[in-house]
């Protein structure tokens, strides 16, 4: 399987890697927020991605509107779902031993996936809106992936701007640094938790919405996203939000590189081995950050 | 041969030096005190010695053997025991099980010693009670005798007097003296100055992670730098 690496192939790897990486970064940012603010490990994050995809699919079926433009609607809907989940269930395990939040979110993820399976069956759905690629200078730029990249970059930039410049965003960052200090500063921590979970769900949903145009939609599609989001956070450093950006792009690049040399099945193994290796060598991630 | 030698130990957290180039030596069969204002790095130093935290630089020798870098469980097995600032008994194990769990060797023998220990601190009737249900003082005692179950040569006590009433405290201090008479070495972190002055033969003072003074309690009390550290200029 020794392949001579031409500049063209490398270029393709970089391009494809960045396109995928932006999506990873955006979704992982959501997970990082939940972990950073509430110290909850949200295994149900992947199913949120899946719900976003289904949301886009049904909106497109119902209205025929450009699926990229219905993104805000899907995000808003899943924002509310996230709020509901946090308000009803997750808040009870914030501050509890991590075991509880792990098992709770695991249960929620199983329930969500199977609910969707029952409601919509596991038949593959697709949103056939945009297909094909642009060829620019010998590199193939997948059209849907490129548009998705633009949207993902936009949403992520907005998210970071929100975190950095708005009052609520700063409150979120303050709470993730120290809950006690935030309380003392008069921040309504419970409301911040609600907001964060909703925001994270919206980010996941937007990932799913963009994916809807690229891959086949089925109930189990989200679970690999939970795992990969964790990998991104570990690569970039837990609690380190810009790290999620770097981690996402890095994961995208590494996967594309691996796919040159390995079959697609084995590239799953690559992500896994990478996670274990990084956790062993530098548990605080490549960019440093808080450990669990 | 000194029991414990701490050489040039440093540990920082993101740019802030919690412990900075601290050195001292402990001789066997003596009681030492470690004092300093809040945040001076005492517990961090304990954690570095016992292996619960990695030190950034420096060496620690226990009976002439390098122990820096060893796993915490290995260090404990070599003969260093410690208690914690915030009590860490195992809440869903009974008082007796808390003591049993640190022992090796025949179980019957360990149970006998465990019950003896509980008798020693007058808790024998609570042997089968979940440690989490005990009062603060009772938990403190369980944690104390748990350390003794492994027969340690060096004992690190982190604020043994905190939250403990006078009678109990006297019993504890008498026990510590007995341990010293048995040839063990004790280093205690303490805020209660009466305890330190009454019990310790030598006192080390930390301020902002650095050792600023070392000597018998009487001299330390009068030391200007120490007074400054506690009360400011």
């Amino acid at each position, binding site marked *: 399987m020794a392949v001579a690496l031409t500049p063209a192939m490398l270029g393709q790897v970089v391009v494809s890697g960045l396109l995928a990486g932006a999506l990873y970064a955006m979704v992982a940012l959501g997970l990082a927020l939940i972990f950073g603010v509430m110290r909850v*490990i949200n*295994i149900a994050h992947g199913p949120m991605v899946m719900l976003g995809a289904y949301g886009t699919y049904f909106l497109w079926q119902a209205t025929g509107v450009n699926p990229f433009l219905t993104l805000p609607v899907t995000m808003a809907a899943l924002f509310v779902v996230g709020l509901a989940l946090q308000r009803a*269930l997750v808040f009870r*395990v914030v501050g509890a*031993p*991590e*075991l*509880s939040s*792990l*098992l*709770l979110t*695991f*249960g*929620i993820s*199983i*329930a*969500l*996936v*199977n609910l969707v*399976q*029952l409601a919509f069956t596991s038949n593959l759905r697709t949103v056939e809106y945009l297909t094909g690629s642009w060829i620019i200078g010998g590199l193939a730029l997948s059209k849907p992936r490129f548009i998705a990249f633009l949207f993902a970059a936009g949403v992520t930039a907005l998210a970071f701007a929100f975190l950095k410049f708005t009052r609520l965003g700063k409150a979120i960052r303050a709470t993730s640094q120290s809950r006690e200090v935030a309380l003392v500063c008069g921040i309504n921590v419970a409301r911040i938790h609600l907001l964060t979970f909703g925001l994270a769900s919206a980010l996941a949903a937007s990932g799913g919405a963009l994916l809807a145009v690229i891959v086949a939609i089925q109930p189990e599609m989200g*679970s*690999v996203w*939970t*795992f990969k989001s964790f990998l991104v956070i570990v690569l970039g450093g837990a609690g380190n939000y810009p790290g999620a950006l770097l981690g996402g792009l890095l994961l995208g690049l590494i996967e594309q590189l691996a796919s040159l040399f390995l079959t697609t*099945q*084995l590239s*799953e*193994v690559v*992500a*896994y081995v990478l*996670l*274990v290796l990084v*956790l*062993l060598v530098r*548990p605080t991630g490549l960019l440093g950050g808080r*450990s*669990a | 041969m000194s029991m414990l030698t701490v050489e040039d130990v440093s540990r920082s957290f993101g740019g802030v030096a919690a412990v900075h180039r601290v050195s001292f030596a402990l001789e066997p069969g003596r009681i030492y005190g470690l004092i300093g204002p809040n945040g001076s790095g005492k517990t961090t130093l304990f954690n570095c010695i016992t*292996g*619960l935290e990695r030190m950034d630089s420096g060496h620690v020798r226990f009976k002439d053997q390098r122990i820096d870098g060893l796993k*915490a*469980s290995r260090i*404990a*097995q070599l003969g260093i*025991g*410690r208690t914690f600032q915030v009590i*860490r*008994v*195992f*809440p*869903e*194990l009974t008082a007796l*099980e808390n003591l*049993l*769990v*640190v*022992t090796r060797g025949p*179980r019957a023998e360990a149970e006998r010693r465990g019950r003896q220990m509980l008798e020693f601190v007058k808790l024998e009737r609570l042997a089968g009670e979940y440690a989490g249900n005990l009062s603060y003082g009772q938990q403190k005692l369980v944690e104390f005798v*748990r350390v003794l179950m*492994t027969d340690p040569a060096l004992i690190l006590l982190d604020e043994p007097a905190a939250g403990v009433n006078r009678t109990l405290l006297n019993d504890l201090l008498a026990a510590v003296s007995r341990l010293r008479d048995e040839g063990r070495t004790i280093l205690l972190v303490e805020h209660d100055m009466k305890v330190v002055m009454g019990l310790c033969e030598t006192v080390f003072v930390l301020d902002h992670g650095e050792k600023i003074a070392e000597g018998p309690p009487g001299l330390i009390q009068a030391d200007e730098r120490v007074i400054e550290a506690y009360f400011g200029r």
Partner: protein
Amino acid sequence: MTGARGAVLAALALVAAALCVYPVFGTGYGIRATLQVFMWIALAGSWNLISGLTGYVSFGHVAFFGIGAYAGAILITTAGWSWPLAALAGGVAACVLALLIGYPCLRLKGPYFAIAMLGLNEVLRALVSYFEGLTGGGSGLSLPTLDASTPIYYVMGALAAAVTAMTYLIITSRFGLRLMTIREDEIAAEAMGIDTFRHKLGAFLLSAAGPGIAGALTARDQGYIEPISVFPLAVTVTMIVMVLFGGKGTVWGPVLGAVALFVIQEIVWARYPYVHPLLFGAIIVVVVLAMPRGVLGLLQLRYRLPRTI
């Protein structure tokens, strides 16, 4: 106390005797169902050993079931092994996998370990598909026909009993106490001289053997396996909900959970097929929030029952 103890032992002996005699007059369905319950007792009980006692949640535990199934099936088809030996080999294969995975992953703190285990299942499924020549890949592996459901019934029953007995021995030993300290306060445990890594690894290996053997037995019983049938997430979910419901960290909790949830599953399946995974997810949520110690754990606390319940 010996009065109560004697009564319990007598009751156990009675149940055991009834189960031994059952295949003689039981229906085909009844025997298969009981065999399934035995399997779940073995699986749930094994999961309890690592996750219930040490608090390290293993989300990928079905991997051991699958690897046992494949190891057993491959030995039967290509090397002509008898199924009892192949079953033991399945257990060994699972233990080897546990060592390979556990050695790096158990050094991680609890939550990170859980995340690492999340991906394990998918990785194994991918690897099985990759090594097609050996495993038959996606098309699966067929075993030579053999009706051994009655002997397998007994072996699976023995496995369930063995796992439960092992749990009892562990919980009453200092080894078990030390495992529990990992759950209670891992840092304090280390500071007290307990080598938590070795203990976790030991529990992990022990917890893999049962599923490995059960996997191989199931492969023989079904006569055909494919990646999706022996590595389904649903198996892990069921293991988890059984232990959580019955009472994690107890001896009989997994048994209670296995019986109760299997019955629920059969009842629900009869009326509403495919609903039970959703139900299990919901039960996990409810148990974690309302009854985190499970049924037996709650009783243990309320009525101050001994830990060997």
